[in-house]
């Protein structure tokens, strides 16, 4: 399949070279036969695309597919060891093989860059202002006072409330969202012709994410900036870009206008990708989810598995008290999935840590399967944990890197002394099979597993005890959509078969909608709204819930409404 794709990409570039369309205006950026390798490993192979002036193009693909690498090759910012071959023309000028000195004038002035990770993209020991002055130096403006004025104006433009304070701050004194806006501001300050934005929102909350994407779209319009947007979120790409390039393992799978790629994806990969995006497929798991729910409902739906009543938790930091959970109450019937949603810092993790007894509440009671959780020592909680397990948010940190998969999955059985040796071996294999992991992985260590495989190991580990309740803290937020889809499927079928009760934490409302039965919306430590998923999503009562729901990328491309018909793209299907 890869060979096939490669062929098409080649065909395209060759066709372009031999028969250029004479009347077509010169594209701002043209990438042609670009390959990049790190040492001996080629991670980007023969990629080509074009981006016209004032247009936007999204590079999409799962993690590690080479998106950032392409962006960096274009920007000539490959890390040491990276080597690019092929052709990259900016405004008709070949940029790959000119000298660093020759390329430098383009930097910032003509090509702006918004990096992926706002927290690490500003020098931590210099003030924002000092770094902004560097960007402002690219303007032909000798007067520092005026330059500062321009900086402050730009900060205001990107929606920073108090530009002067931001100017004087050090990076660590600002939140991620603010930093991301600063970075966008610094990138657009010299009014570049091309803006390369590498996942500008992946680290942010949905609400802020929407604001930033809106800002980029607006800037693109206002200043006629071309946008090379990199994202792994198909929904965002669909909403924001005129054109798409779908990558897998460094090879272009499909490229074309957003509308056509979405309406009729030509490659199997793009089709699967589209199907896995929750926002585009809200009812994908409805049948699976409700099947399990229905069977149970007839049984003992009356007895709630989890009861949380009037729980409050405050933390004291720097002498200031912070209420992370305030008067939380909810119940979860057996065999159902309850979701906790809310933006970052709203108290979701705190709620479930209280639920597991990892933190003790200041007030309120919690019981799981009739057993009280509150007011017990860790030793006393062991018996509760026998039936109550947690899957952590981050599969990269929740598994001991020195243990093998077998040891990891076996550990709870050994600790709780479940069954005989033989039976334990048996259970480990069953659990791995449940999460669809092959036995060949048994002797691997987490370092040799992909993120999705790791998270499945983590789930297997919590399943192996056959607990009644599993708490999942954003179990898929670190993963690609396709992996996420696999895991969700596993979870739902297990629930259907075993009647498990889930508490599911997520900030991805689209995902919640796909798999939860009931939901609590959290905001600043409080539950602002709760009830059945369908009821809340279809008819939100609270303004906060409404804004959350509005931020879900619809997958309906804004660009599709834009008037850019002459967009010409390398579309294999054409």
């Amino acid at each position: 399949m890869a060979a096939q794709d490669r062929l098409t990409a080649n065909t395209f570039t060759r066709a372009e070279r031999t028969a250029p369309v004479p009347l077509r205006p010169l594209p701002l950026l043209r990438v042609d036969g670009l390959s990049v390798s790190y040492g001996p490993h080629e991670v980007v192979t023969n990629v080509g695309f074009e981006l016209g002036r004032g247009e936007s193009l999204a590079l999409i693909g799962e993690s590690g597919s080479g998106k950032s690498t392409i962006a960096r090759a274009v920007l000539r910012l490959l890390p040491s060891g990276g080597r690019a071959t092929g052709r990259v023309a900016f405004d008709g000028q070949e940029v790959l093989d000119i000298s660093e000195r020759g390329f430098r004038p383009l930097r910032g002035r003509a090509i702006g860059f918004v990096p992926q990770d706002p927290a690490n993209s500003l020098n931590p020991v210099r003030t924002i202002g000092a770094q902004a002055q560097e960007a402002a130096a690219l303007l032909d403006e000798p007067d520092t006072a005026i330059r500062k004025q321009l900086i402050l104006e730009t900060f205001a433009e990107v929606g920073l409330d108090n530009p002067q304070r931001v100017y004087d701050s050090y990076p660590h004194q600002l939140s991620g969202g603010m930093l991301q806006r600063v970075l966008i501001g610094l990138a657009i300050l010299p009014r570049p012709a091309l803006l390369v934005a590498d996942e500008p929102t992946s680290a942010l909350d949905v609400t802020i994410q929407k604001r930033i994407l809106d800002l980029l779209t607006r800037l693109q319009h206002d200043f006629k900036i071309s946008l090379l947007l990199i994202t792994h979120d198909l929904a965002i790409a669909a909403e924001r870009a005129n054109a798409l390039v779908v990558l897998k393992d460094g090879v272009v799978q499909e490229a074309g206008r957003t509308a056509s790629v979405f309406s009729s994806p030509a490659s199997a990969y793009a089709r699967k990708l589209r199907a896995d995006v929750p926002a585009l497929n809200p009812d994908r798991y409805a049948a699976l989810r409700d099947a399990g729910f229905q069977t149970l409902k007839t049984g003992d739906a009356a007895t709630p598995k989890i009861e949380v009543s009037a729980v409050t938790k405050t933390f004291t930091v720097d002498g200031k008290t912070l209420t992370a959970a305030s008067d939380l109450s909810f119940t979860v019937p057996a065999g159902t999935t309850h979701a906790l949603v809310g933006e970052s810092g709203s108290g979701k993790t705190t709620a479930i840590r209280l639920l597991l007894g990892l933190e003790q509440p200041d007030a309120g009671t919690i019981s799981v399967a009739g057993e009280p959780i509150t007011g017990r020592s860790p030793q006393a909680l062991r018996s509760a944990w026998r039936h109550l397990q947690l899957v952590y948010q981050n599969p990269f940190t929740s598994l001991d890197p020195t243990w093998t998969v077998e040891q990891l999955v076996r550990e709870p059985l050994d600790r709780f002394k479940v069954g005989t040796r033989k039976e334990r071996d048996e259970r480990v294999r069953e659990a791995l099979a449940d999460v669809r992991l092959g036995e060949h992985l048994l002797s691997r260590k987490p370092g040799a597993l992909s993120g999705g495989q790791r998270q499945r190991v983590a789930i297997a580990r919590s399943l192996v005890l056959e607990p009644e309740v599993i708490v999942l803290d954003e179990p898929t937020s670190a993963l690609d959509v396709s992996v996420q889809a696999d895991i969700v499927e596993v979870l739902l079928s297990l629930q259907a078969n075993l009647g498990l009760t889930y508490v599911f934490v997520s900030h991805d409302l689209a995902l919640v909608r796909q798999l939860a039965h009931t939901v609590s919306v959290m905001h600043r430590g409080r539950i602002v709204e709760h009830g059945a998923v369908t009821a809340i999503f279809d008819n939100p009562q609270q303004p906060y819930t409404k804004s959350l729901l509005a931020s879900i990328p619809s997958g309906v491309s804004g660009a599709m409404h834009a008037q850019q018909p002459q967009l010409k793209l390398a579309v294999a299907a054409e």
Partner: protein
Amino acid sequence: MTLASFSSVSRGTSLGWLSALRAPPTVALSFVVIALVIAWSVAPGLFTGHSPVAGVPAEKLLSPSAAHWFGTDHLGRDLYTRVVYGTASSVTSALIAVVIAAVAGGLIGLLAGFLGGWVDIVLARLVDVLLAIPNFLLAVIVVTAIGFDTTNAAIATGVSAVAVFARVMRSEVIKTRQAVFVEAAFLMGGSRWHILLRHVLPNASRSVLPLAVLQFGLSILVIASLAFLGYGDPPPASDWGLLISIGKDYLKWPWLVYAPAFVTIATVLSVNRISRWLRKTD
């Protein structure tokens, strides 16, 4: 046996050898040097036909030649042979130092980091004291207190490095203790000690390994310096440090200093290179 454990420490299983093969040329060269050093210490007899103790007094102080690669010493013994036979003791003493430092320091760091509270406070002050006394001064004081020979010099060197390991171990343990997988282990029903031994220790030890390798090289130098000050084994021992320190009295015949010094430098250089490589690949 100690040597076998050293080489296995360096990377572990067959996978380790694969990556060793893919190592940069300088690292590969370093491994070759270390392999040679190990071979010398395991089977010195295979590398030379001379005796390290009995010389021909009439052939004293000959300059390097085909017959005597490193020349002969003041009693007519083949210096190359003495270097080869001295390897085992040099390597062993450096190992003793590292083991003492790593085990004692590691234990202190482990307990301080994991138990926290007053245990941490008490141990931290102890480590501070050890840190506050310059390493070499500490080694000299300890070796005078326990007597002068190479093993004691190794012990003193180890003691002087305890603080370093304790510090690194403690910070690693604290880092590890806060790791999510440690909390997860509690949820899996693990007891404190189980978690300490099976989760925290192996993980925290990983960054101690390059340090231990580095310390190995450092120990060779410190023990050599102690030998230079006269705190080494009696003759006819031929540890590298002793050879250099004997040679320095015969500077008119410079190979007596420079040949063993060269071997020492090559070994330490290789060990340091490997340590740096380990740190990078980890």
